[in-house]
C-alpha cells in the first residue's frame, strides 16, 4: 500500500506539473489540443492524489505503523475519528489534504462556464502550478508515505489537546479556504498577464472569493471555539503568531471582496481588487511560513523546518509578479472615478478597505516585531495582547461604523431625502440605545459605542428594506417587503453578514471588558455566591476509561431563581501520553458564560477551582454563525444565476456592469 501511495504521489507531481505547463507556457502547435491535454493531466494528477490520501487514511484507521506518519500520530487507544483527523494534523498529511483540495478546486474552475475562457484556462494552469509546488514539497521535504524505521505495535497517538470535535473540522476548513483563495489570485494574475482586465474577471473571481472568505471566517471561529473549550484559560484569542497568521488573509480578503463590489458598480478600485486577491493568497502562504518555519515562539510550538521558507519564497514570488504585472497594465487599470461624494457607498468602501489594510498592517507589525528585532537589535522583543488592545479599537470602531451605515447609502450619489430621514431615525435609535446602556450600568466608552453601532447595524437593513419596498409606489405590505428581500437577496445577505459581525464585536467587547475571575477552594457541600449565581460543590467523581483516567467535580449552579444546572469541570490523565488535560465546563447564556476549571483535587474531598465570568461571549459564536449562514445565502445564487446559461455567459460583453442600486453582496 505504501509503495502504491508513493507511486501515486510521484505521478501526481509529474501530471500536475504537466497540466500547469500546458496551460501557462506558450508554445507552437497543438492549440486546440493543449487545453484538453491539460485537463486530462489534471484529472490524472487529482486521481493520483486521491489514491495517496486514501492510502494514508487507510493506514491511519488501520493503524499500519509501517508508515512513519501513522506511528507518529495514531495509536491503538485513539478512537477511529481522531485517527482519521490525524490526516491533517501532521506536516505531510496537511500538505496532502491542501494539495488535494486545491486540485479539486482547479478542476471545478476549469469545468465551470466562464465569460472569458482564456483567463479561466490560464488561471487553471496557475492553480495547477501551485498544486505541483505543494506536491513537490511533499516529494522532496515532507513525504507522507515515508517508511517507519522502527515498526512497533503502538504509535505515539494524537496530542490530547487535539482530540476535540472542533479539530475534526477546523483544520480542513482552513486548508479549504487557503486552497479556494488560490483561484481568485490565479484569476487576477491570469487577467493581468493576458491584459483581459474587465468585468468578466469579477464575475469569475467573486464567487470564489466569497467562498474562500466564508471558509476562512468559519475556520477562525472554530479555532477560537476550540481554544475556548479546550485550552482552559477562559479566552478564545491570544494574539498568538499562528492566530494572527490566519487573521491577516481574512482582513485583506474582506477588503478584496469590497473592492470587487466598488469595481463592479462604479468602475473603481480595480488595482486594489486585483492586488488584494494576490496579496490574500500571499498571506495564506505567510501563515504557513509562520507555522512551519520555527522562527516564532508560540503555544502552537512548530519546530524549525525548511518547509516554511519555501512558502515564504512562494509568497515573495506572488507579490513580485503581481507588482510587475500591475505596473505593466497600469493603463488598463486606470479609472475615471474620483472621490467627489463622501457619503456614497463606493467612498465608504474605499475608506473601509483602507482601514482594513491598516488593521492588517498593525497585526503584521505586532507579529513581525519579534523576528525583526532579533535581526536588527540583536535581541528578541515581543508585544502582547495589550499592544493590540491599545491600537486596534479606534480602527475597529471606524470599520464598524462604516459597516453599520452602508445599507442606507447609494452608489455614486448622496442619499435621497427619504434615505436621509431613515438615516436620522436610525442614528437617533443608536443614541437612545447608548443612553439606555449607560443607564443600565455600562460605563466604558468603547462598550457604549459598540452597543450603539450594533443597534444601528441591526435597524439599518430593516430601514433599507422598508425603503426598497416603499419605492414600489403602493402602500407597503409584507408582500412588498418579501419581494424586495427576494429581489435583493444577495444585498440583504451582505447586510446580514454585517449584523453578524456587529454581534461578534458586541461579544468581543463584552467578554474583553467585563471578564471576571475568581480562584476558590471548596469542600463537599460548600456553596458560594458569585456574580449573581449560587455555586455549590457537590462531590468529586472519578472513573477509569480505556484510554484515560477521569476526575470530575460536580457543581450545582443556580442563577436568579432559574432551575439549577449541573456542571462537571474535569481533569483527564491520558494514559498513553501520560499527560493531564483540563476539561472545562460552561454554563452558557445570552448574558454571559460561567466558565469553570478544575485545577486540582486536594484530598479530603476538597477541590481547587477557577471560576470565570465571561459576559456576552455567546454573541461571538451566534454572530459568527449568522455571518456564515448569510454568506452561504449570498454565494448560492452566484453559483447558478437565474436565467444565465453557458451560452448567455459566453455572449456577455467584456465591459458589462451591474445595476447601480442592487446586488451589494
Amino acid at each position, binding site marked *: 500500500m505504501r509503495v502504491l501511495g508513493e507511486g501515486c504521489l510521484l505521478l501526481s507531481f509529474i501530471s500536475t506539473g504537466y497540466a500547469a505547463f500546458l496551460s501557462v507556457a506558450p508554445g507552437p502547435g497543438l492549440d486546440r489540443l493543449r487545453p484538453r491535454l491539460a485537463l486530462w493531466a489534471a484529472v490524472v494528477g487529482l486521481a493520483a492524489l486521491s489514491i495517496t490520501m486514501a492510502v494514508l487514511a487507510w493506514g491511519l484507521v488501520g493503524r499500519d505503523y509501517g508508515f*512513519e506518519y501513522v506511528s*507518529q500520530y495514531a495509536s491503538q487507544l485513539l478512537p477511529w475519528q481522531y485517527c482519521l483527523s490525524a490526516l491533517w*494534523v*501532521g*506536516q505531510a498529511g*496537511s500538505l496532502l489534504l491542501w494539495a488535494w483540495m486545491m486540485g479539486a478546486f482547479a478542476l471545478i474552475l476549469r469545468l465551470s462556464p466562464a465569460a472569458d475562457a482564456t483567463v479561466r484556462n490560464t488561471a487553471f494552469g496557475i492553480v495547477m502550478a501551485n498544486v505541483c509546488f505543494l506536491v513537490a514539497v511533499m516529494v522532496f521535504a515532507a513525504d507522507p508515505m515515508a517508511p517507519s524505521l*522502527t515498526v512497533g505495535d503502538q504509535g505515539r497517538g494524537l*496530542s490530547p*489537546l*487535539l482530540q476535540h470535535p472542533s479539530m475534526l473540522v477546523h483544520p480542513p476548513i482552513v486548508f479549504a479556504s487557503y486552497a479556494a483563495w488560490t483561484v481568485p489570485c490565479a484569476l487576477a494574475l491570469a487577467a493581468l498577464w493576458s491584459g483581459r482586465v474587465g468585468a468578466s474577471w469579477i464575475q469569475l473571481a467573486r464567487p470564489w472569493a466569497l467562498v474562500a472568505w466564508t471558509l476562512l471566517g468559519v475556520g477562525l471561529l472554530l479555532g477560537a471555539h476550540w481554544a475556548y473549550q479546550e485550552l*482552559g*484559560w477562559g479566552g478564545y484569542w491570544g494574539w498568538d503568531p499562528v492566530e494572527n497568521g490566519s487573521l491577516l488573509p481574512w482582513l485583506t480578503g474582506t477588503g478584496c471582496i469590497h473592492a470587487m463590489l466598488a469595481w463592479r458598480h462604479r468602475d473603481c478600485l480595480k488595482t486594489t481588487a486585483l492586488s488584494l486577491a494576490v496579496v490574500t493568497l500571499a498571506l495564506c502562504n505567510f501563515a504557513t511560513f509562520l*507555522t*512551519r518555519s520555527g522562527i516564532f*515562539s508560540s*503555544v*502552537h*510550538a*512548530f*519546530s*524549525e*523546518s525548511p518547509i516554511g521558507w519555501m512558502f515564504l519564497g512562494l509568497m515573495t514570488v506572488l507579490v513580485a509578479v503581481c507588482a510587475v504585472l500591475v505596473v505593466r497594465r497600469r493603463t488598463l487599470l486606470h479609472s475615471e472615478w*474620483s*472621490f*467627489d461624494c463622501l457619503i456614497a457607498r463606493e467612498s465608504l468602501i*474605499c475608506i473601509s478597505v*483602507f482601514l482594513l489594510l*491598516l488593521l492588517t498592517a*498593525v497585526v503584521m*507589525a*505586532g507579529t513581525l*516585531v519579534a523576528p525583526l528585532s532579533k535581526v536588527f537589535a540583536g*535581541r*528578541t*522583543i*515581543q*508585544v*502582547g495582547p*495589550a*499592544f*493590540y488592545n*491599545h*491600537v486596534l479599537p*479606534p*480602527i475597529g470602531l471606524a470599520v464598524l461604523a462604516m459597516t453599520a451605515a452602508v445599507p442606507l447609502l447609494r452608489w455614486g450619489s448622496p442619499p435621497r431625502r427619504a434615505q436621509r430621514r431613515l438615516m436620522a431615525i436610525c442614528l437617533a435609535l443608536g443614541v437612545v440605545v447608548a443612553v439606555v446602556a449607560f443607564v443600565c450600568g455600562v460605563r466604558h466608552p468603547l462598550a457604549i459605542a459598540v452597543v450603539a453601532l450594533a443597534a444601528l447595524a441591526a435597524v439599518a437593513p430593516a430601514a433599507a428594506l422598508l425603503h426598497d419596498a416603499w419605492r414600489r409606489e403602493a402602500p407597503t405590505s409584507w408582500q412588498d417587503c418579501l419581494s424586495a428581500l427576494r429581489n435583493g437577496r444577495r444585498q440583504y445577505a451582505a447586510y446580514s453578514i454585517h449584523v453578524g459581525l456587529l454581534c461578534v464585536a458586541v461579544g468581543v467587547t463584552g467578554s474583553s471588558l467585563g471578564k471576571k475571575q475568581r*480562584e476558590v*477552594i471548596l469542600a463537599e457541600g460548600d456553596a458560594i455566591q458569585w456574580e449573581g449565581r449560587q455555586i455549590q460543590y457537590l462531590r468529586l467523581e472519578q472513573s477509569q476509561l480505556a484510554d484515560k483516567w477521569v476526575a470530575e467535580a460536580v457543581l450545582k449552579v443556580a442563577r436568579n431563581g432559574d432551575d439549577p444546572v449541573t456542571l462537571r469541570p474535569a*481533569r483527564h490523565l491520558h494514559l498513553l*501520553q501520560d*499527560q*493531564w*488535560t*483540563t476539561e472545562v465546563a460552561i454554563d452558557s447564556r445570552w448574558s454571559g458564560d460561567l466558565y469553570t*476549571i478544575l*485545577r*486540582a483535587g*486536594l*484530598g479530603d474531598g476538597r477541590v*481547587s477551582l*477557577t471560576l470565570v465570568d465571561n459576559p456576552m461571549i455567546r454573541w461571538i459564536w451566534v454572530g459568527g454563525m449568522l455571518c456564515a449562514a448569510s454568506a452561504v445565502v449570498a454565494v448560492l445564487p452566484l453559483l447558478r444565476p437565474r436565467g444565465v446559461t453557458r451560452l448567455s455567459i459566453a455572449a456577455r460583453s467584456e465591459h458589462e456592469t451591474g445595476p447601480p442600486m442592487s446586488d451589494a453582496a
Partner: protein
Amino acid sequence: MTSGVKLLAGALIVAVAIGYLAFLGAAGNWQYYLSVDEAVADEVELAGKRIRVSGNVVAGSLRVSDDRREAEFDLTGKLHSLHASCSCAIPDNLADDMDVVVEGELAADGMHGHKVVTRCASKYQPKVAIAERVESPGTSVTR
C-alpha cells in the same frame, strides 16, 4: 487640490496617527524574549524588568503545589541554568525535560514567574525530531 490628493492626504494623516498609536502601544507593552543564556549573561541589566525567558525544564527539578497554583523548577539553556518560581495557573502538561516560556521578573534568586507557557506537542514535527526519536526510542519528540 484635486480629490485624489485630498484623499491621499487624509489617508496619510490617519496612517500617521495609527502609527503613532502603535508606537505608544508598543512602547508601553513590549518585553524582551530571551533564552536562559541571554538572561543570565545580562542578569544585572535585566533585574526587575518584566521579561520572557525560554528554556528546558531540568529533569527532576520540577515541584508543583497541590492546588497547581505554584511551581518551582530549574530552566536550562546551552551554557547556564536559572531557577524559576512561578505563582500562576500551572499548565497541565508542564513536565520535566519540556521547553517552556516563563514570563515574569528576574531577581537575584532567579525568575519570579507570573505566567508559564508550555509548547503544545502537536503538529508539523520536522525530520530532525524523527531522527532523534529513532536514536533514542521512547523519548519525547516535543521540541
